[in-house]
């Protein structure tokens, strides 16, 4: 049973300064699937991904990744992270970027060539990353995450700013990886991309407001497209959440009165 779970998070709390980014997030992400992390910008997608790959300072809670505590030494070979905006060395060639990651992971030598073919950058391998187009740059970032054949790949907004053709190509690549058994966690704020995922986590203001599948999302909301479905869910959540907020405020008010 545990073997089917890639990521298990319980009661995760993250604070930044005085604000609570997460105040008790629970979630389970299955293995071998593409899980889409969707929500408006600022909703906590990046923080959640950072928590999963173990670079986020957390206040409390448990994050278990592939059966180990997030960020533990052994996971650094098994999970890869592609940050928002690529995080590649622009002043190195494509091959040099990949060779560096391969050296850090002690990946086999031919891994660089294998990955270059997978992302279709063989012809550009000698070019400086800074001279590439935005789409190619994104693929370099993805290629770096593929080195060493990790079991889990976490990608933060990998398709942002790309044209529809490139986006479709990337999602085909993700699908191919998932078919090979790789667990993919991909964030996006483009709701159309939701339909390409196996599972969906919809986030808003640091909370998971839906843990569903694309079909169930559309069915549940009766919406025609994911954009409308997401808006419906946000409306619903706003209703519930403002209620609880109001009741909490009222409760606090009563409490203060009682205290006086």
């Amino acid at each position, binding site marked *: 049973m545990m073997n089917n779970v890639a990521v298990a998070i319980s009661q995760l709390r993250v604070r930044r300064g005085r604000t609570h980014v997460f105040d008790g997030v629970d979630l389970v992400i299955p293995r071998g699937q593409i899980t889409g992390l969707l929500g408006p910008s600022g909703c906590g997608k990046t923080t959640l991904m950072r928590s999963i790959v173990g*670079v986020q300072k957390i206040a409390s809670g448990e994050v278990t990744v592939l059966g180990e505590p997030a960020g533990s030494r052994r996971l*650094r070979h098994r999970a890869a992270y*592609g940050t928002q905006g690529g*995080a590649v060395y622009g*002043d*190195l060639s494509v091959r040099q970027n990949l060779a560096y*990651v391969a*050296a*850090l*992971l002690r990946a086999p030598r031919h891994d660089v060539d294998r990955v270059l073919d997978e992302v279709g950058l063989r012809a550009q391998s000698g070019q400086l990353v800074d001279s590439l187009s935005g789409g190619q740059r994104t693929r370099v970032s993805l290629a770096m995450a593929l080195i060493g054949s990790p079991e889990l790949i976490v990608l933060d907004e990998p398709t942002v700013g790309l044209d529809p053709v490139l986006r479709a190509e990337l999602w085909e690549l993700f699908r191919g990886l998932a078919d090979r058994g790789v667990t993919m966690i991909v964030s996006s704020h483009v709701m159309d991309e939701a339909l390409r995922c196996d599972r969906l986590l919809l986030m808003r203001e640091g909370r998971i407001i839906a843990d569903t599948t694309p079909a169930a999302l559309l069915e549940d909301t009766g919406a025609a497209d994911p954009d409308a479905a997401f808006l419906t869910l946000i409306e619903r959540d706003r209703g519930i959440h403002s209620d609880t907020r109001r009741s909490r405020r009222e409760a606090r008010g009563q409490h203060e009165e009682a205290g006086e």
Partner: protein
Amino acid sequence: MNGSRMFATAGRVLGQLRHDPRSIALMVIAPSLLVGLFAWLFSDQDGVFDRFGGAILALFPFVVMFLVTSITTLRERRSGTLERLMTTPLDKADFILGYALAFGLMALLQAGITVSFAVGVCGLDVEGPLWQLGLVAVVDALLGTALGLFASAFAQTEFQAVQFMPLLVFPQIILGGLFMPRDQMPDVLQAVSDWLPLSYAIDAINAVAAGDEGWDVFGPVLIVVAFAVGALVLASLTLRRRTP
């Protein structure tokens, strides 16, 4: 710590530099130009350049390497590549030492050229062996690299990183003994200068220039090395895998 990852990191940093020939030129040539300017300034006054030229040799590699290192590592923090590296098996020590190694090699090149220029072209008169002058320049550049690595942890922007120079570097220059021999300073300032690494670098250079031997040269050099190692340790302590 792991040697191969440290070497991979050093190789990567040098690879980045190789694609930036302008920076290499600045790093390698700028100190020579400044030494040349200094020599020219005192060309009509006999013996002044011989007295101060050595100390200047200790200064420029330090300043240049401080700037280059603090900006480069800051760029790594800000571009997200550092965060990516922190999810790989790369140890923090490998990262820091990889940088120190790469810039140490650049420092070797820089010191070789600067010392040759100062002695060969500007006619700097040195009593001691030239390799010792080079050694002090390299150790000094390493100190600059180490402090730069450390300082970059406290800067959020390139602008701030550059502002650290007046804060961390200028007092060391002023109190280092270049403007006034340290034993003539007010007691308090002399006590402060005893705690600044650049003071020892200038002591070492002056010892080489005067033809001193043994402990007079290597004592201060070792102190500078100790400061550099200390700064590297602090730099790796400020590097965090988990950030807020």
